[in-house]
Each structure stands twice: as structure tokens, then as C-alpha cells.
């Protein structure tokens, strides 16, 4: 076979899978969010179109497709139109390094882990351009917020990916899955998994870090001026495509990738992705939203030091015990997770109450108590 043909086949396969993953997630996830969060908040959710409302996303997709695509008069038209496309690069490209089953990766790069992180910068770029090009203050604020947030949370994300790379000794995702034959890394590094989930929520702009599109403050953030299919691009394909990528990465890094009982296959990977996606939806239905300064403080004062300590200790253990480092790493990680869970709530509450006391040290007043 000539190299040209093999290249073309490769390209087509990559494009098909790269487009299928975000498209499928854009169809499945919004529906799942609406039904599941509906269930959590004691209501039905969409249940009219098709069996149990299952065709609702298709109806929504058609509606978005047929809607007029409006751009504000003073918007920068070219960038306004370009932005969703730029943001869409991330999920399409990032799929290519994910191993779907044994020996089935679109691009088996030896630095796949770095690539996944690197590709996410396109979403940041798209959102920033969308926010600026809309010529709307809410959009601009949303875009700026999102960039600050995504750039900040990329750091703990990368630090935790490095921890896994250190455990495996390779940056290739195939090696990562290969190393999890005996035990999944969630059991070895629960702390890294925890940080990965939290940082992932921030990277994806999901609750409780959904500030860039905080509908009660910024209307819809960078999405405010978008309508029709351009909105669909951002909301469906980019956002949920990225969620899929995040879940795929998480499943690969911590949950053993395509491994599972009865011969590993992509089915297991999909199941794990759905479990992680369920967490996203669960958070959405449960948490209020953080504030910008709190969000930044959390990244720089909690997550990054925590990840650095975890990285340092893990590295030290790997150097000291090059042959049997997994048990001590797991012991350290589990101990830290339990400490954090036990201590974080009370400590945080105490700090907040102290802050409140400082603001208003309780005024005594002649009041008629009943």
C-alpha cells in the first residue's frame, strides 16, 4: 500500500472518530443532564419526544440548525464566526490520542499525555475570542473569567497527570493503560484522582466552577450573543465534547482505560466515561457556584500546593523504592485523602466564621426580645 493511501485512510478514520465522539456526547449528555438533574430536583425533564424523551436532543439539534444565526451589528463578524470552530478543535484532536482498546489508538504518540493538555488550549482561545468578538460586556467578562480559570486550573491538572506519568514511567497513554493491569491508579493515587476531578470541573466550566457562563450574573457569559448552530457548537459540541475528553482521560489515567472483566474492549471505557459524566451531572444538581476570587484562591492556594506535595512525595518514594513504590504511594495518598475529607469542612467553616466576625463583631442593641 502506498503511503499516500494509508495516510488518507488514517486521516478519514481519525476525522470520523474525532467528530463522532463530540457529536455523540452532544446528543447524549445534555439529555442525560436534563433527565438526571430533573430526577434529582424532583421534576420530570424532557419526556415528550420519543420514548422517555429520548429524541429530545435530536429535536433540539434540528431547532438549533434551523434557527437564524444572528450576529450583533457591532461584533467582529469574522472572529465571531471563527471562535466556535477554533474551540471545536480541542475535542476533535484530543480524541486521537485516547486508546480505545488494545492496539486501537488513532495516533499512538509517545507523548499523548502532553498532547491532551496541549490541545485544551484551543478551547481557551475559542472562548476568549468569542467573548471579545461579541462586543458585549457580559461576553467579555465571561471570556476573561474563563481564560483566567482555565489557565489556572490547567496547572494542577498537569501536575496530576505528571504524577501518573511518573508512576508509569512513560507519557504514552497506551503504556498508562498497560501499567494498570493489576491495579487501577485510582487505588494508588486517590488524591491525584480527586484533584483531577476538581480541576476538570473547572477546565470544563461546569458547576461549581461555571463562572464563565454564570447565567445569574453574566447572562450566559461568552455565549450571550450566540444563537442557532453557533450556540449549538459551543454548548453541545465543544462543552460536552470536552467533557467526554475529560472523562476519557480520567478513565484512562485512573480507572484502567479499556480494561475490564471479560476481555478489555471499548465498552468498558464507555461505561467508565458515563460514570464520570454522572459525577458532572451530580455536581450540577447539588452545588452553588463559587466566586471568582474564591475560585482563584482555591486553585493557587489549595490545589497547586496539594498537587506539588503529592508530586514531591510520590517522586521521592519512586526514587527511594524503585521496585516496590506502589504500596507506600498508595498509603500516602489514601492518608492524605482521608485527612482532607475529615479536616477541610471544619477548617473552612472556621475560617469563614472568623472572617465574618471580623467584618461585623456583633453589635449589641436595645431590642425588645419576645
Amino acid at each position, binding site marked *: 500500500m502506498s503511503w499516500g493511501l494509508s495516510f488518507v485512510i488514517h486521516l478519514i478514520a481519525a476525522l470520523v472518530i474525532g467528530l463522532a465522539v463530540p457529536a455523540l456526547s452532544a446528543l447524549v449528555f445534555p439529555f442525560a443532564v436534563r433527565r438526571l438533574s430533573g430526577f434529582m430536583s424532583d421534576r420530570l425533564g424532557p419526556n415528550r419526544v420519543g420514548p422517555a424523551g429520548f429524541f429530545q436532543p435530536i429535536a433540539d439539534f434540528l431547532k438549533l440548525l434551523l434557527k437564524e444565526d444572528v450576529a*450583533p*451589528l*457591532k461584533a467582529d463578524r469574522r472572529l465571531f464566526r471563527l471562535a466556535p470552530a477554533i474551540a471545536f478543535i480541542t475535542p476533535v484532536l484530543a480524541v486521537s490520542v485516547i486508546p480505545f482498546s488494545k492496539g486501537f489508538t488513532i495516533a499512538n504518540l509517545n507523548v499523548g499525555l502532553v498532547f491532551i493538555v496541549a490541545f485544551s488550549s484551543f478551547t481557551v482561545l475559542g472562548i476568549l475570542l468569542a467573548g471579545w468578538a461579541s462586543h458585549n460586556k457580559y461576553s467579555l467578562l465571561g471570556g476573561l473569567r474563563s481564560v483566567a480559570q482555565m489557565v489556572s486550573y490547567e496547572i494542577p491538572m498537569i501536575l496530576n497527570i505528571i504524577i501518573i506519568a511518573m508512576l508509569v514511567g512513560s507519557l504514552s497513554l497506551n503504556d498508562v493503560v498497560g501499567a494498570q493491569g493489576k491495579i487501577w491508579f485510582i487505588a494508588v493515587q486517590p488524591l491525584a484522582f480527586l484533584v483531577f476531578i476538581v480541576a476538570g470541573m473547572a477546565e470544563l466550566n461546569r458547576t461549581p466552577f461555571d463562572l464563565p457562563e454564570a447565567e445569574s450574573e453574566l447572562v450566559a457569559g461568552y455565549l450571550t450573543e450566540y444563537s442557532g448552530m453557533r450556540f449549538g457548537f459551543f454548548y453541545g459540541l465543544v462543552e460536552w465534547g470536552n467533557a467526554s475528553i475529560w472523562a476519557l482521560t480520567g478513565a484512562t489515567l485512573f480507572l484502567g482505560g479499556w480494561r475490564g472483566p471479560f476481555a478489555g474492549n471499548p465498552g468498558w471505557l464507555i461505561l467508565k466515561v458515563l460514570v464520570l459524566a454522572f459525577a458532572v451531572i451530580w455536581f450540577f444538581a447539588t452545588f452553588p457556584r463559587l466566586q471568582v476570587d474564591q475560585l482563584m484562591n482555591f486553585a493557587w492556594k489549595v490545589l497547586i500546593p496539594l498537587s506539588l506535595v503529592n508530586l514531591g512525595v510520590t517522586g521521592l518514594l519512586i526514587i527511594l523504592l524503585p521496585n516496590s513504590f506502589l504500596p507506600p504511594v498508595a498509603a500516602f495518598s489514601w492518608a492524605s485523602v482521608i485527612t482532607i475529607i475529615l479536616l477541610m469542612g471544619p477548617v473552612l467553616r472556621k475560617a469563614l466564621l472568623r472572617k465574618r466576625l471580623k467584618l461585623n463583631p456583633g453589635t449589641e*442593641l*436595645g431590642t*425588645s426580645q419576645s
Partner: protein
Amino acid sequence: MSAEPFVTGSEEAAGLAEELLAGLAAEVYPDAGRVVIVLQPGRLHEAALKLRDDKQLSFKYLSFAGGVDHKDRMEAIYILRSVNHSVVAELRAPLDRSLPVAPTVSDVWSTAGWHERETFDLLGIEYEGHPDLRRILTDAADGVHPLRKDSRPQRVKREEWRFEGIGAPRRLPGEEERINRS
């Protein structure tokens, strides 16, 4: 809790207020659970301060500031409450209807700031010394004070405003983007 005995009824409050406002009030009488204090012209601010700072009456809470147009005269009305007792005081300051000007009490009770803006808007009472006396509810009705008894419905002239597309800022007076530092 202050050690002062609380006021128990509107008669007692009326007596106290009469004593307190000697020379300021023209008339003080209890009526339907409240004390009505009719002030002499021009003594509003002094009376307000005295009523607020008095230990026993302690009218620290202004329910609202409003006005009534009596066709022949105008009255500025203030309803006062106290944390200590349940008697409500009603301050009435008579004003000249052709040129209703009252001193502001927004420095006595901060809440008067917006209530006076509203009364200025609806009745045209001008409050002297008010830090920010703009219309509040009916910005567009220039020169019309709808709650005056002689005001008739009329066409409100609107500022000519051309639609410049979505996103074009509509500048209102006093809303220019301020340059903070230079």
C-alpha cells in the same frame, strides 16, 4: 437594653413629644394608635434630630417620607417608629404649595434619601441639601409631578433616540464612562 422606661401608649408619647418639641411643633395629638406632630414651618430638621436622639421616644427608624397635596397647601409626611416602643409618630411639615421646599432629613435617617427622591418625583417637593435629588420612578416625565392634584395626563416628551444596533450603548445623563485615574 436601655434602662429608660418604654413609652406605653400614644397619649404618653404625645405628652413626651409635646414637651420635647416645645416651640417647634404647632400641634401634637394622639390619633388612632399614633402621635400626630404638626410642625411649625421651617423647623423640620431640628425636630427630626430631637425625635431621633431622645432617649425615651428614640424614633431611630423612619418608615417612610412622603407627602400629601392638600390643594391649598402641601404637607411633607414622615412616619417614625422606634425599636423601644410600638407608638408610631407622624410628622407633618406644612409647605408652601407654589414652591414646596423642605430641608432634607436624609442626614438624620439614611432611608429618607430614596423616599425623598420618590416624593420629589411624584409630588415635586424639593428637598434642600439632598445629596442626590434625581427623579426615581418616572425619569421620563420631565417637569410633571403626577401625584399633584392638578396634574393631568399628558404626553411625555421622550428624548430622541436612534437605534444603533445591538450593543450600541444608550447614554443617559451622568452615565458617561468615567476615567478613574490619570
